[in-house]
């Protein structure tokens, strides 16, 4: 059914001049490519904002109590005389996490590349439900506006951490925050709706709209990862929404789900949050792994090593993600016997993670490595993910976690996975698919400058956080110098802060390269990276409806350096004389 409708749609568009109005084409567009670009712009703005909030935190941590340069523009309720208030610092902590997780990394991976890549890579004209797709974006925008509005709320924005542990999060008497936290809840409920709309669409599209010959095991790993991610989103987001609705009800209509004095359970929130939250962690890394796999195979001019293992590893991580949430709660007062169980399941995640890492290495082994900018970011992804993965072993091990839980070791770990992992992958992916999105190349020289500065300052910022954690430095401290044993660590904190400022400043290069290339970049040909997958068989940018005729797929996505071939890549849609004739199209096509 869906295939028929879509194919009809595509034929209709391919044969007509595109006569949609500006608003239909660029604002309320149902074209998955435009929606992907809309998500890209929205989430890059939130990425910048989340980074700016982190800079304010780092100022306070590096130079506690000194007025923030330019901070006097902030209202008195945030920073009187430019000195950040502890409650505002808590809001910064909360909103940095919230923006980065929900409004930057997640939409960048799922909203941008799920949208942009899935139809193009499987040979479909658009998503299965284009209008749902458009709704998904505009619902996400509404959610973002609600979240931003929280900064104007009396009592300040939510300040209980992005994990919003009850009862601090829901009791204004304890936090001083009321409206801000309520807006936080409403925004996440609305955002959840957006993610669900996206997820059903991705799942339906991958299942139904694959081009002839695009069997499951010919799918690029990016599509496998996005598909599994969409399933995780579909199953995990309702848990978050349910929990957040309970939190909102506790605040507004007087329920007591998380209030022990009235019979509620404090730990219930943590169970709900992390039952969502751990799959969420994989939502934030799986698509990055998938795209990195595509880019590394391309950069190595070599088939991906162990394609099937990679697919099963994605599924394995997706499955294990559901049975490890308790490792966030080892010290929460949960029954210690459960701690043992969750330790084992958590440690097992090392297995699929190792499979992926070794297969990336295997892909590069005996390759013919081309270090274009996306490849540099992808290699950095592997190198950084190794650190993030290995540091995970420390906190998975319950006794060691007793010591490092809620310290900067955890902060280092999550940033090695989310920044060193996901964000490096995203810089690579944005550079890689930029020509397909905008028809122009990003400047490779400035791309490399940005990469090296980011790589160096990133490590200078986050690596020393391991050491802070190992010396017992707690998280979310407004002023660590209040503790005698942390005063000795202040030079590290200052070093980290300065590195962080340089890291943030380096991103201006990316921003400028992104914006200027849009207008002045070198025009991109259809297949600038000499890649195999279907999106490179159509012009850059592809027309509305993507493919002039439905492509037929003859092989997997990673046929590089095939012996005897006339070039070092062999696109999925190219029919060789040895390939069977395309199956006759069923009636109606």
């Amino acid at each position, binding site marked *: 059914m869906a295939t028929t409708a879509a194919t009809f749609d595509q034929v209709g568009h391919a044969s007509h001049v595109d006569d949609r109005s500006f608003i239909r084409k660029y604002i309320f567009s149902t074209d998955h490519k435009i929606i992907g670009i809309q998500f890209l712009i929205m989430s890059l703005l939130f990425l910048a904002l989340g980074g700016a909030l982190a800079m304010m935190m780092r100022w306070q941590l590096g130079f506690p*109590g000194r007025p923030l340069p330019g901070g006097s523009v902030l209202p*008195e*309720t945030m920073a*009187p005389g430019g*000195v950040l*208030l*502890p*409650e505002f610092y808590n809001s910064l902590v909360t909103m940095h996490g919230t923006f980065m997780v929900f409004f930057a990394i997640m939409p960048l991976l799922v909203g941008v590349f799920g949208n942009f890549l899935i139809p193009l890579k499987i040979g479909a004209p658009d998503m299965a439900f284009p209008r749902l797709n458009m709704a998904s974006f505009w619902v996400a925008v509404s959610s973002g506006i609600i979240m931003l509005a929280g900064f104007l709320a*009396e*009592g300040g924005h939510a300040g209980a951490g992005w994990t919003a542990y009850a009862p601090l999060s829901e009791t*204004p*008497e*304890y*936090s*001083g925050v009321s409206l801000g936290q309520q807006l936080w809840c409403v925004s996440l409920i609305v955002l959840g709706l957006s993610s669900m709309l996206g997820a059903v669409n991705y799942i339906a599209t991958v299942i139904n709209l694959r081009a002839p010959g695009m069997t499951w095991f010919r799918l690029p790993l990016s599509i496998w990862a996005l598909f599994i991610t969409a399933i995780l989103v579909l199953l995990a987001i309702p848990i978050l929404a349910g929990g957040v609705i309970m939190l909102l009800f506790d605040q507004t209509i007087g329920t007591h789900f998380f209030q022990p004095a009235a019979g509620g359970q404090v730990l219930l929130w943590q169970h709900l949050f992390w039952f969502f939250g751990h799959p969420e962690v994989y939502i934030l890394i799986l698509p990055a792994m998938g795209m990195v796999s595509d880019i590394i195979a391309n950069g190595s001019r070599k088939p991906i090593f162990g394609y099937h293992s990679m697919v099963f590893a994605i599924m394995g991580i997706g499955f294990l993600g559901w049975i490890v949430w308790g490792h966030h709660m080892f010290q929460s007062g949960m029954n210690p016997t459960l701690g043992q169980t969750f330790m084992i399941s958590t440690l097992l995640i090392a297995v699929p993670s190792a499979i992926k890492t070794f297969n990336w290495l295997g892909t590069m082994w005996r390759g013919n490595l081309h270090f274009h900018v996306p490849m540099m970011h992808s290699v950095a992804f592997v190198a950084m993910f190794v650190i993030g993965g290995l540091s995970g072993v420390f906190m998975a091990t319950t006794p060691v976690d007793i010591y490092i839980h809620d310290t900067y070791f955890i902060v280092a770990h999550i940033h090695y996975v989310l920044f060193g992992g996901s964000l490096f992958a995203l810089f690579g992916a944005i550079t890689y698919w930029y020509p397909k999105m905008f028809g122009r190349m990003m400047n490779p020289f400035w791309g490399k400058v940005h990469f090296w500065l980011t790589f160096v300052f990133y490590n200078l910022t986050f690596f020393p956080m391991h050491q802070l954690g190992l010396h017992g430095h707690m998280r979310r401290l*407004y*002023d660590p110098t209040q503790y005698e044993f942390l005063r000795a660590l202040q030079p590290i904190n200052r070093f980290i802060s300065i590195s962080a400022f340089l890291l943030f400043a380096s991103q201006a290069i990316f921003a400028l390269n992104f914006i200027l290339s849009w207008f002045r970049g070198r025009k991109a040909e259809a297949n600038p990276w000499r890649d195999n997958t279907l999106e490179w068989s159509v012009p850059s940018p592809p027309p509305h409806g993507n493919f002039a005729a439905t492509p037929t797929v003859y092989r997997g996505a990673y046929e590089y350096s095939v012996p005897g071939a006339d070039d070092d890549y062999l696109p999925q849609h190219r029919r060789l004389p040895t390939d069977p004739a395309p199956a006759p199209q069923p009636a109606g096509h």
Partner: protein
Amino acid sequence: MRYLWLVPFGMVLGVLGATGASRQQGGSIAGTVKFTGAPPANPKLDMSEEAACKGKYSTDPVVVVSNGALQNVLIYVKGGLPAGQKYSPPATPAVVDQEGCLYHPRTVAVMVGQPLEIRNSDPVLHNIKVVPKKNRGFNISQPTKGMKTTRTFTVEEITIPVQCNVHGWMHANLAVFAHPFFAVSGADGTFSIKGLPPGKYEIEAWHEKLGTQTLTVTVPAGGSATANFTFSAKAGG
């Protein structure tokens, strides 16, 4: 700050009030609050883990008696004011200072709309947690010495506890009145309430530990009335 736009209206109302009513020439109530018997022992304070305040105060001044005079009693007109009369708040703020990890004064009263200024004279974090029943509460911090925060209140409420969670012993009493006829007894136990129109009033004296006492006084036109209160250890239990 949310009600800043009300200021011009308030000023106009104030001028009208001053010309219309006879507050300036009104009568007054004055008196002394005394304490008989041995004052109850105040709780000891353990500030040893707070370097900035260590040793400054050793007891929590709940009941402060000197020469038989009781300090920190809130005295206010409870009944007898003309119904429906509106009063404009003074522009000068009432001030609460945090010094030596205690509030000074311990009992403070403001009028609806009158600014309450909270200062921190300690080089240490204090938070000011105000949880009223009728007004909008807040819980804010003052991490550094010399910080000031100003807040106003919208409806009458007697009384609202003020506390600091960093120093669990820190308590103050805040009262918000819809009229300007209130006072807090000083170190010598005296107080005075000025500008009252002639009439018969019910006066209440409130102490956080010793409870309340009520008197009825008649204020003659342009004259003054006396209201003396005497608390004892038994009164409040």
